[in-house]
């Protein structure tokens, strides 16, 4: 139960930010940040002489901001593309972190596997005690605080975020600094990664930021709706993922990501507005519509002419309009169904309704 609640809180915290990362085309920055915090974490532990939560947090935050600044600086030299800048900086930071661990923390339990996967399974063991009273797992407070901070940021700066995301130029003209919004968002991504990764690991943080928000992006065009959907999908993934992990006795983090992935692919296929199936059906409908119009106009053009009988033969249709016989069959079938044409001795005749529609098309 405690695992599920932690999972939900972290999912929501991540999804709130993820929405803006997706819209601002910075999804991969979250990947970079969540890996690049390792050296900061190690340095923090080093100065605190032990795995101190606060020192680690501070170090990780500094490392994250260094990463963001380095990526921006590299991009600004014009020598390196944005994606390449990310692709060099975060492995360098991660390598530095692993190096520091190997050099100075041979005996400290901080293996890189744990950094990548986290151990959400163990959240129940780190509890917050004040005096002797058990106030529940620490992770509640960390994840809850992340949720609150992110929600507060999005509510307070909603207008600025929206403007800077959809029209950075206009935002700058109006006096909002896109620079400030960018760094504030990156700082929050860092804080959230740092806070979340001790319990769920770097990869789950990235997944929860990107995947639910990407699914939501396929389902709606409205920003508030997208934020809500992303948070909902994230929370649902946490619940179902935990169930899945219990069922097959496997990693909770992995299962949560897998469920979120299933939601994404479901949205990709079945979204009523942007799904692949809806898109295919839209194209098919247009194909039939154009075919129908061509058929009506063709029949109307030759109505009353000498060659009418010949022009309205099924076989002639496919060669004249360059249709495959199957397609011709389909269109004629649809037209007959809608009462636009009738078949008479192998010829097609316009009904009154069909004639009227054809004439309308000619007018247009």
């Amino acid at each position: 139960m405690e695992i599920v609640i932690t999972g939900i809180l972290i999912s929501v915290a991540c999804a709130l930010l993820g929405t803006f990362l997706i819209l601002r085309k910075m999804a991969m920055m979250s990947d970079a940040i969540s890996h690049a915090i390792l050296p900061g974490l190690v340095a923090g532990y080093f100065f605190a002489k032990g795995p101190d939560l606060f020192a680690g947090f501070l170090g990780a935050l500094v490392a994250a901001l260094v990463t963001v600044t380095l990526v921006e600086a590299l991009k600004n030299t014009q020598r390196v593309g944005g994606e390449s800048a990310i692709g060099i900086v975060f492995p360098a930071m991660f390598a530095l972190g692993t190096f520091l661990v190997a050099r100075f923390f041979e005996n400290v339990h901080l293996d890189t596997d744990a950094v990548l996967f986290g151990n959400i399974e163990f959240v129940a063991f780190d509890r917050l005690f004040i005096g002797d009273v058990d106030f529940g797992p620490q992770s509640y407070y960390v994840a809850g605080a992340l949720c609150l901070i992110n929600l507060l940021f999005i509510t307070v700066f909603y207008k600025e975020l929206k403007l800077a995301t959809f029209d950075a130029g206009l935002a700058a003209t109006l006096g909002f600094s896109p620079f400030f919004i960018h760094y504030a968002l990156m700082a929050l991504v860092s804080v959230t990664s740092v806070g979340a990764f001790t319990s769920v690991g770097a990869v789950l943080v990235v997944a929860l930021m990107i995947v639910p928000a990407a699914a939501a992006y396929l389902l709606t065009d409205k920003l508030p709706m997208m934020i809500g959907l992303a948070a909902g999908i994230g929370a649902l993934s946490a619940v179902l993922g935990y169930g899945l992990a219990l069922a097959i006795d496997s990693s909770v983090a992995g299962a949560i990501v897998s469920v979120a992935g299933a939601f994404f692919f479901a949205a990709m296929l079945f979204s009523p507005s942007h799904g692949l199936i809806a898109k295919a059906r839209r194209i098919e409908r247009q194909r039939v519509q154009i075919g129908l119009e061509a058929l009506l106009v063709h029949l109307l053009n030759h109505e009353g002419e000498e060659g009418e009988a010949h022009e309205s033969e099924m076989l002639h249709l496919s060669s004249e309009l360059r249709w495959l016989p199957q397609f011709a069959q389909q269109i004629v079938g649809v037209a007959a169904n809608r009462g636009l044409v009738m078949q008479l001795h192998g010829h097609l005749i316009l009904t009154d309704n069909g004639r009227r529609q054809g004439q309308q098309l000619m007018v247009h």
Partner: protein
Amino acid sequence: MNLLTDLIFDYTLRNIALGAAVLGIVSGMLGSFAVLRRQGLLGDTLAHAALPGICIAYLLTGSKSPLVLFLGAAISGWVATLVLLRIVRETRIKEDSALGVVLSVFFGVGIMLLTFILKHNDANQAGLDKFLFGQAATVTAEDVNTMTILGVFALLVVAVLYKEFKIMTFDPNFAASLGFNDRWLGVILTSLIVVAVVIGLRTVGVVLMSAMLVGPAVAARQWTNRLEAMVLLAGFFGALSGVAGALISVSEANLPTGPMVILSLTVIVIISLLFAPQRGILWDIKRFSKA
């Protein structure tokens, strides 16, 4: 001098250095195209996407032979490529987000499978995760052979299709107008990057792989404006950082090879970015202060 003789005669060191060098050459050369095509993060996604393939290959065959695991990794990397292209081409999701989605979902599924194997299987699975997080110290001669064969194959394909890749890299529209199938060339190039990634997983691991593709190419780009020179130079830088990393990691106890390779590479990148003639950033500053 001692190190040099070790490099030739010490079995472990020779394998580590050879493995890292092969990786450096292959990923450097292929990375050049990826970087110029602005696909610097592709390697990161493909590296993560290899995990479920490794797990499934092991679950199906029960074998840990490098060839089987390499093949599993390559297949799932390739599937990830196709999914990625599909998402970018057919939905409103942008490339950046699509990379993130594919990366995390494939990796999540992989972790689920890996944990499943760890919990349900006999002790035989030990070392499966080496194929993911890179443990150069345990690279065997068999691993090196497999890597070399894969690498030579990939570079042969590059040699044969060099002209096509070149046109596609700089002017995809022109390539299409000449009748080259842009889509298939893209798939081939990405598949070759999958091969490089698969080689790299064993040596430097999943997180550091992206730098092995991007780093040498970015450094090489600083020194030349010609693609041929850039590709060769990137291969050289890759190999150099591979061997340097291997040497540094054995010179002192308890240093992991993968991170040392990446740190050596980072030094090469920084030097190139700052000091390369013409494109070096320092010359910019000098020019500014004169003006």
